[in-house]
């Protein structure tokens, strides 16, 4: 199978940068990493078709090997659509997370902290950094953010929602 070297190198670079970004704690960077990786995967799928060839419209005079294999492109299109949907959903999640907590970083799990504190592995200092303000846009949208934040929070706590039970209980204790 013949492979386009440029595409191959590009794919490798996208994977490398994507994985690097994925290891960050900031959600926006994680999202960028996911976008890069999904594009790298798309390039990989594209390359499985092999050398470029003619459009696969049947013509009896053209030998079979001159055509381009169309299947990878069909798979690729599906994969692009799915990745697009997932990325938009992620964006919505990140936005929501920012509106609620004005935090672009992934927070620690409360229960995890509790279990860790039993074992003595809990480091309050190290953990405190996650609580900090992390977004660059805090000043501009502070007022807006608070306005959206406060009523919503109240509503959440009032809701008779079993799923939020433990979290609310924990908040109550503190």
């Amino acid at each position: 199978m013949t492979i386009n070297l440029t595409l191959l190198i590009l794919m490798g670079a996208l994977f490398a940068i994507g994985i690097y970004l994925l290891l960050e704690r900031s959600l926006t960077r994680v999202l960028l990493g996911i976008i890069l990786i999904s594009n790298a995967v798309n390039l990989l799928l594209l390359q499985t078709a092999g050398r470029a060839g003619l459009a696969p419209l049947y013509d009896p005079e053209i030998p079979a090997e001159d055509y381009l294999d169309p299947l990878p492109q069909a798979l690729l299109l599906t994969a692009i659509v799915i990745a697009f949907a997932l990325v938009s959903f992620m964006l919505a999640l990140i936005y929501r997370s920012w509106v609620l907590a004005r935090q672009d970083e992934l927070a620690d799990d409360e229960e995890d902290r509790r279990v860790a504190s039993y074992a003595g592995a809990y480091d309050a200092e190290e953990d405190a950094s996650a609580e900090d303000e992390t977004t660059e846009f805090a000043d501009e949208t502070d007022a807006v953010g608070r306005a959206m934040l406060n009523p919503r929070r109240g509503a959440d706590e009032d809701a008779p929602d079993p799923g939020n039970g433990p979290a609310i209980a924990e908040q109550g204790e503190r």
Partner: protein
Amino acid sequence: MVTELLSFTPLAVLIPFFGAAFAFAFYRNKSTQRAIAIGALILTVILEVTLLAQVWYGGAHAVHLAGWPAPFGIVMVIDRFAALMLVVSSIITLCVLLYAVGQGAAEEKEDSGPVSIFYPTYLILVAGVSNAFLAGDLFNLYVGFEIFLTASYVLLTLGGGESRIRAGVTYVVVSIISSMLFLIAIGMIYAATGTVNLADLALKLGDLDLSTQLILHVMLLVAFGIKAAVFPLAFWLPDSYPTAPAPVTAVFAGLLTKVGIYAIIRTETLLFPGERINTALMIVAALTMIVGILGALAQADIKRMLSFTLISHIGYLVFGLALSSIIGMAATIYYVAHHITIQTTLFLVTGLIERRSGTSNVLRLGGLAKISPVLGLLFFIPAMNLAGIPPFSGFIGKLGMLQGGIAENTWITWTLVFASVLTSLLTLMAVARIWTRGFWRKPEDADEAPERQLMSKTLAHARAANKRYLPMSMVAPTAALVAMSLAFTVFAGPLMDFSRAAAQDMYERTPYLEAVFGPERSEGVREELEDFAATFLIDYETGDGGAAEHAPVETSLQPDDEAAEVVPEITDESDDHR
């Protein structure tokens, strides 16, 4: 007649999809939505039970969508295993939906936003799971995974509260990564073999270089392992599942990880049969069991505890399938069906406990057995079942795996046998702790301040409050699931026979391949496929696959030179006679 009915197989995916579309269309009218959702799922259950009845004796059947012949078009294959999974999953989803409806009706507050999303998304989840079970090619499997995962993202973050968003982000990112790995594996497999059709791959993968095979094999297993929550890849599960609403967690815990296991089983039997990485799989299985259950013992929250037991019991399934024997696989199939039911039931019961007492933290629970004996019974049966106490189905499944492990008689299987018995005991300990704390002790004895809802003045007061907190519309579906888990014990004989037949089919691979390629060969690919068909026939008649029940099974169907040579020899002889 059999074939005609089985060609309605794609409806198992389409009915929930259409249901979802109509439910979306009626987003203003909640009762219509509810009726559509319940109706669609009841139809699906009826259809799938019919399909199972057809497949029970008939074996595998493939539906070629749009009439394209096998390796080129999209195939949906229903064999014994897939049919069983479909039926169990659809009954589960129906019960959980009824429970969710009951919960929605019981919570008086008008909360139209998320609810109008809930029914359609739930139906899409069901469609995605069915699609994954029926997929006849790798890419369709990927699409099935994506359908139900995307639906699960929405369900997990339903309402958009802070804790759910936090948990949702972890879940979404991890799932996307595993999907990307799966997609990379698909790309590499296509590059290596030029096909994504599972049956076609079963024939072609064997021709590849052993090292290439190993890479593809491990990549697929890692991708599926994340979805199935196998030990080193299971970190995401206890973080994300418990935050969702009770019915959503129940269906996730029951179904979603099992789809991953289903994909692993298909990989191990259809695509890469053999014993190359079985030792590695068994080590992973042992670690999954032990680490999972130790995690469960550290938890105070019932939902999180159950999430960890879920991981731990995935280990049993991996153990069973890594045995590579018919008896081990049969036990695994039985255990998957049992575990889907039991895990869902336990999460639903936890939802009830949470409603009755206001918390699912065992440190603040107490006295539930006295306040509500029904709740106690509903918890006790599946809990004992999970621990594998003899009359229940958990014991039967585990027994099969232990038998398989002992029959194999190597150091690693003995280690696994020991690990699984230990895990079983620790599971018993974990559920017993919930039982003694939550149900037996007095509320006043709770470690932390007990919930107000548990502190009624008299028993009569408490019992009177039961009606409000535990409406019949939520208790009945839970009870139905408990009854179903008991049915697994009552019908263990036929079910085990069925699982054994399914396991035999999967190791022989002939029924699957014959269903995909055999009867519906069209003119265009006839020549190419006749070779395959010839090999099937020879193997099929000698029936060498899985002859010895306890022995590890050699795959009977490899497109190697031996089979090709046998045919010319016979013809030569017949020529000589003439």
